[in-house]
């Protein structure tokens, strides 16, 4: 230990407390350094005074009174049910920001969806009629080639489901709602078309059939649901979550083709 370190320990000993090791080090140093020994002697009455005064013996407070305030402020005000985003105590500004972000995502999806649809499945209504009529000759080239990748279907449908599950209390503008309805109706047409195709292949796609049946029900409900019908929306929400529809859709899309 040098004199600088000894000085630090003396200051620490006056204003804080020394460990037994620190005290021993200080005593060792003072034995060899008369200057520091002088400083220690002048500070000695104050060294460890705080520790000796037993500052740890704090008076006992009223624990129960404190608990009453803590439980009233921290527990009784806790939200009973968590919202869709895990917290229900968010301010309106946060909800508006999230609704705007969701609307922006949906808009990008909708624009992409219609642009892609024009390029790929421009004649889907005709295709449906063709399938319904049992004729494959009028099915669009996209369907005829037999390369309907479920991944594309899932890519289109996934955001529709996510958007529904994350719906907030803030209603999007009417124009956007109309676009949503159109997307849902289109997805319903595609789902029915896929069901027809899997049925035509002789029921070899058991899990896919089940999923498509669920999706047809979900999309039909969404297409016919009134905007203010919160109860039906909650019921459908539970069904989508309980049946793990999004997960099944992703898995099947990743591993299946028709």
């Amino acid at each position, binding site marked *: 230990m040098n004199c600088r370190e000894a*000085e*630090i320990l*003396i*200051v*620490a000993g*006056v*204003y*804080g*407390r020394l*460990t037994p090791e620190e005290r021993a080090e200080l005593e060792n140093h003072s034995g060899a350094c008369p200057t520091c020994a*002088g*400083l220690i002697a*002048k*500070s000695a*009455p*104050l060294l460890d*005074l*705080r520790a*000796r*005064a037993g*500052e*740890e013996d*704090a*008076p006992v*407070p*009223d*624990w129960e009174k*404190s*608990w009453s*305030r*803590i*439980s009233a*402020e*921290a*527990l009784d005000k*806790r939200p*009973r049910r968590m919202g869709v985003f895990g917290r229900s105590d968010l301010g309106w500004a946060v909800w508006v920001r999230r609704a705007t972000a969701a609307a922006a995502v949906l808009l990008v999806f909708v624009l992409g969806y219609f642009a892609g649809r024009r390029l790929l499945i421009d004649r889907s209504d005709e295709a449906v009629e063709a399938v319904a009529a049992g004729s494959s000759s009028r099915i669009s080239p996209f369907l005829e080639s037999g390369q309907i990748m479920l991944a594309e279907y899932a890519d289109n449908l996934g955001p529709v489901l996510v958007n529904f599950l994350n719906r907030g209390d803030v209603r999007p503008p009417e124009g956007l709602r109309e676009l949503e309805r159109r997307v849902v109706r289109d997805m319903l047409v595609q789902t029915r078309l896929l069901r027809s195709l899997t049925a035509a292949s002789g029921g070899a796609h058991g899990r896919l059939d089940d999923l498509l049946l669920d999706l047809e029900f979900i999309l039909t409900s969404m297409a016919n649901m009134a905007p203010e019908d919160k109860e039906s929306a909650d019921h459908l929400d539970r069904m989508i979550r309980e049946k793990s529809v999004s997960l099944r859709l992703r898995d099947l899309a990743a591993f299946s083709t028709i």
Partner: protein
Amino acid sequence: MSDDMTVVLAREGNRDAFRRLYESHREQVYRTAYRYFQSVQDAEDIMQETFIKAFSRIRTFDFRASSSFSAWLVSICINAAIDHLRRRERRVEKKRISLSHLPQEVPAGNPSPEDVEVRRQALERIRDALRILSPRQRVVFDMRYDRHMDIKDIAGCLGCSESNVKAQLFRSLEKLRRTLEPRWRQS
């Protein structure tokens, strides 16, 4: 039941778990707060504020990032104490403090009433002198030289870098040393 398990239950909204956490840690939090204020009222306020904050944010407690629930609570308590000290410091005028006039012999063990008074005054001067430090410096100094915490632990507790802690300590020691210098200069 371990603290971790109790925290998990509390996160689920179990009221008994909150109560258990309060009973296990209230003394430590209260003593930590009392150390800085020497007042039951202030220490109680800080303790209550600490538990209210901790329980309201219990979902943000990260088992991997924090060494223990107890350490997390103490860090909330210390930060609440710093804020409280800052609010109070604004109202208190800082004095120039020197310990040169304190008696050369401060009695210890079985003291008479007069001795108790001498010791009380000496302690008061020491506590007053600590007020020359900023609230943050006071807490850092206390953690290092009273509770003997590592620099790394102090930095973790206060959410700052180790070099910041060292700088705060250096400045604190310099300021406190100046209060002792007149006493050291006395022949």
